[in-house]
C-alpha cells in the first residue's frame, strides 16, 4: 500500500510564560492511501497537537526541534527545523512559521483538510453554511467551479439528450458518460449529471427535466474569458472590481456544489439548508457541514479531531455510519482522533495509541483491541467502563506534566511491568507481525 503521509521522529515544544511544554517527543506515524487511521490518547498525549502540525495550523509559540512530516515526498515542515538549534528565539520561530504558512496555503484546506471538534466554533456564525462550503472550493479549486459553469454554457439540449440515452442504458453508464463528456469538451458536467441521476427521491421524469435544464446556461459575456482563464489556470482573478463580479458567479456555483455534497452526507432538504446560518442548525447538521467543508475539495488527507465528542450518542452513531459509508466514495485517507476507543473501533482500520507525545503502539483495530501489547494500551482498555464490564481498573498515577517528563520510557512510573532499563532509556518502536508495532522493552527480545 502506498504511504500518503509519514511523520518521522517529530519533536515539538510549546514555549509559554508558564514553562516549556514538551508536547511531541519523537512521534513516528504512517498513513496509507485510502485507510482510516484512528489516533487514541488522553489529554496531554499530543494527539491534537499532532493534528495541528500535520494540518499546518501551529500557533506562533510552537517550537519544532526535530523531525519531519513527509507529504508528497517533501518535508513540509522543513522551514521550522534548523540543524543544531538549541535555543528558542521567538522572532526567528515566528518568522519560520510565517514562511511555513505561506508555503502551506496551497496544501492546507485542499489537499490536507481538518474537521474540528466543535462545529459551532469552527463555522463562522455570520455566514450562510452554503457560502462557507462554497468558499472552500472558491479559494482552493476555482477551476472546478469555472468548469462546471462553462460545461453547462457549452452544452446543448442535444448533448443532454444523448447523455440521457447513455444513462438510461443502465450498463456501465459511468465510463460511457465520461467518454462522451470528454469528447465534447464538457468536463465539469459529469458530477452535475450524476448527482441528479443518482438521487432516489425523484421521479425519472423530473430527473430528465432537471438534466435537460442543465444545458445552455446563460453566462454574462464579460465573464466568459475570465472563466476560461480560471478553468485553465486554477488561479483567482485579481483585478479589483471584476474579481468581485467573478467571485459572485463562482460562489453561486459553489452553492450548487454544496447542495450536492450535503445530499451525499444525508442532510435533508439541502437546497434549503445552504441558505441557513450555523445557529439555525442542530449539532449533527453543523458537524455534517464541517465535514462537507473538509471533503469538498477531494483532499488526499482529512484530519478529524474529536468530531463526534460534542454530539449526542444517537447523532454520533449517525455520523459514524456516515463516515464509514463515504470513505468508499472518496479516495481520501482519514486520520480520526478520539479519546474514545470504542468510537475508533467503529470507524478505523488501524489504531495508533499515543501517550505523552509519543506513539506507543499501532496496529489493526482488531489486534489493538483483542491483543493489546503495550502496558498503557492494556491499562486503558481495562479502565474503560462498558456495558459488558463489571469492573474497571483505573490506571494508577497521573498523566505526566509535559514540562517535566520522566526519564526513559514516559510510562514507566505508572507501568506494572517497569524494568530497570525502562527508567533510563526510551524504548524504540519494535515491528512485530501484521504491522503491529509497540514501543516497549518487553518486546525487545523477540525478534
Amino acid at each position, binding site marked *: 500500500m502506498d504511504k500518503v503521509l509519514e511523520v518521522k521522529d517529530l519533536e515539538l515544544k510549546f514555549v509559554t510564560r508558564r514553562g516549556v511544554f514538551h508536547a511531541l517527543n519523537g512521534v513516528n506515524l504512517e498513513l496509507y492511501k485510502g485507510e482510516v487511521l484512528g489516533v487514541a490518547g488522553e489529554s496531554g498525549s499530543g494527539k491534537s497537537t499532532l493534528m495541528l502540525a500535520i494540518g499546518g495550523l501551529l500557533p506562533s509559540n510552537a517550537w519544532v526541534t526535530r523531525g519531519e512530516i513527509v507529504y508528497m515526498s517533501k518535508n513540509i515542515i522543513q522551514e521550522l527545523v534548523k540543524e543544531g538549534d538549541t535555543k528558542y528565539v521567538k522572532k526567528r520561530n515566528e518568522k519560520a512559521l510565517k514562511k511555513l504558512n505561506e508555503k502551506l496555503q496551497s496544501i492546507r484546506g485542499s489537499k490536507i483538510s481538518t474537521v474540528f471538534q466543535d462545529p459551532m466554533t469552527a463555522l463562522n456564525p455570520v455566514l450562510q453554511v452554503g457560502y462557507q462550503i462554497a468558499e472552500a472550493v472558491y479559494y482552493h479549486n476555482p477551476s472546478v467551479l469555472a468548469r462546471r459553469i462553462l460545461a453547462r454554457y457549452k452544452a446543448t439540449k442535444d448533448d443532454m439528450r444523448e447523455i440521457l440515452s447513455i444513462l438510461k442504458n443502465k450498463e456501465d453508464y459511468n465510463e460511457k458518460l465520461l467518454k462522451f463528456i470528454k469528447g465534447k469538451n464538457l468536463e465539469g458536467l459529469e458530477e452535475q449529471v450524476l448527482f441528479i441521476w443518482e438521487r432516489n427521491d425523484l421521479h425519472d421524469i423530473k430527473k430528465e427535466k432537471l438534466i435537460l435544464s442543465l444545458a445552455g446556461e446563460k453566462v454574462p459575456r464579460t465573464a466568459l474569458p475570465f472563466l476560461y482563464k480560471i478553468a485553465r489556470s486554477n488561479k483567482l482573478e485579481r483585478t479589483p472590481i471584476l474579481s468581485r463580479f467573478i467571485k459572485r458567479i463562482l460562489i453561486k456555483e459553489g452553492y450548487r456544489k454544496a447542495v450536492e455534497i450535503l445530499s451525499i452526507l444525508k442532510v435533508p432538504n439541502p437546497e434549503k439548508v445552504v441558505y441557513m446560518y450555523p445557529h439555525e442548525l442542530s449539532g449533527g447538521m453543523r458537524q455534517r457541514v464541517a465535514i462537507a467543508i473538509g471533503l469538498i475539495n477531494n483532499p488526499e488527507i482529512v484530519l478529524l479531531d474529536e468530531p463526534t465528542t460534542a454530539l449526542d*450518542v444517537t447523532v454520533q452513531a449517525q455520523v459514524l455510519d456516515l463516515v464509514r459509508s463515504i470513505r468508499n466514495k472518496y479516495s481520501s485517507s482519514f486520520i480520526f482522533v478520539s479519546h474514545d476507543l470504542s468510537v475508533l473501533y467503529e470507524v478505523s482500520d488501524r489504531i495508533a495509541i499515543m501517550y505523552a507525545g509519543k506513539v506507543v503502539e499501532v496496529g489493526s483495530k482488531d489486534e489493538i483491541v483483542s491483543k493489546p501489547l503495550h502496558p498503557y494500551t492494556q491499562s486503558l482498555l481495562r479502565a*474503560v*467502563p462498558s456495558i459488558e464490564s463489571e469492573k474497571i481498573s483505573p490506571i494508577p498515577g497521573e498523566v505526566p506534566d509535559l514540562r517535566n517528563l520522566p526519564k526513559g520510557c514516559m510510562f514507566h512510573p505508572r507501568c506494572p511491568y517497569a524494568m530497570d532499563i525502562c527508567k533510563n532509556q526510551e524504548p524504540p518502536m519494535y515491528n512485530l507481525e501484521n504491522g503491529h508495532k509497540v514501543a516497549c522493552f518487553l518486546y525487545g527480545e523477540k525478534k
Partner: protein
Amino acid sequence: MMIAGYNITKQYVSGGMFSTNKAVVKAVQGVNIKIKEKETVGLVGESGSGKTTLARLLIGLEEVTEGTILFNISDGELNEYEEALKKGDEGVIKRIEGMYDITKIPRSRLRKLRRYMSIVFQDPYSSLDPRMTVIDIIKEPMIATGYLSGEEANKRVLELLEKVGLPKWFAYRYPHELSGGQRQRVAIARALSTNPKFIALDEPTSALDVSTQAQILNLLKSLQRDEGLSYLLITHNISVASYLSDRMYVMYAGKLVEVGEREQVIKNPKHPYTIVLMSAVPKLGKIMQRVPVKGEPPNLVNLPTGCHFHPRCPYAFEYCGWNAVEVAEDLKYLLEGKYYDIGGEKIKVDVLSELKIRVEGLGYQDLEKIIKNEIEAVMSFKSIDSIKKESENAVSIELKEYITPKLYQLDDGRLVSCLLYDEKFINRK
C-alpha cells in the same frame, strides 16, 4: 425512601416582563421518580431530555411548575401518602406534604434539610470558586448548615481530603493549581462534608480523561458502600450509567420513557427509544447492526404531538401521534419528487385542522395509489383513516386520532411509555 417525586413538571417562559415574543419551553413533564436509600438511580437521556432540569428540581435548585417532591420520608408514611392520593384524602395529603415536600415547606426548614443533600457537578473547572482555597470550599457547606464550625470543621476537612485520596497539604491550594481529577475529588469532598444521605452526580466524569474517570468512578462506588449514600447519577454516557446504577430512568424530550432495573433496561430494552439508544453506543470489539434512527432530539418549544419520539421511531404506527402537518409535508415531498408526473407543482396541499388535510388538483384514484405504494416507507401515512372525494378537483384526508402513551407496567416490573405496551395494542409487537 430518599426521594419520592410525583407529577414533576417544569416549564420555562422565555422573555422578560416587557417582551412580546414569549415561548414556553416544556423542560420536564409529569415525571414520577423514586430513589431509595443506599441505591443509585441512573438518569439517562440525550440533549433536551430534561434530565439535568429534573435533577435540579429534585435537589431544590429550581422551583417546580407543578409537582410534589418528598424528601427523606419513611416507608410507612409514604404508603400512607400514596393511599391518600388514591382516595383523595386531602387532609393526609396536606399533612405529609407539609412535612416532607421540599416544594412546599418553609425555606428555613429546607435550609436545614440541605445538610442531607449535596451535588457534584460535571465541570471541575467551574464548580469550585476560583477565589477560595480548598479548605474554604470544603468547609462552606458545614458552616452554612451549622453542621460544624471552627476547629472541628478544619479537622473534618483533613479527614475528607484523606477519604477522597488527596494529600493534606492540598488544603491551602487554589483550584487553578489542581488537575481536573483533583478538582473533582475536592468537589466530592465538599459534597461529603455535611455527612449527607443523598448526592446528585451531574455527569461527574464527562469532563475527565479515561484513566481519571476510572479512578473517580471507583471512588464514588466505594464511598457509597462505606457511607451508605443514595446517588442520583445523571449522564448521557450509558457505560458509566451501567457501571454505577442499580435502577435506570430513561428520559426523552422531557418525559420518562422507560424505568427499570439496570440489567433489564440495558441488556433488554423495551421502549423503541431505549432500543435505539443502546444500539447507538459504540462497543469495543464489535461493529453492531444499528437500529437506524433518523433526525435529532426535538426542540422543546415545539414538541411532536402524541408520543414525542414518534417522528424518529422505527416502530411507529397509526396512533403514535401523527398529525396533519407531518402527513402533509410527507405528501408534498412525494408529489414534488417521486410522483412528479402525476401533476407536479400544480397540486395544492392544505392543512385544515390537526387531523384533516385537503388536496386540490389530485384525483382520488391517484392519491389512493400513492398512499398504497408508500405506506410502508412513509410512516406517517399509517395514520390516514379515510380519504373522501370532496369535489371534482379536491380530495380530503382524515387522520386517526392519536393517543398519548402513559407509563405502562410490564410483567417484569418495568415501566415503559410506549403504545406498543398498552393492552389495546399488545398484539402489534
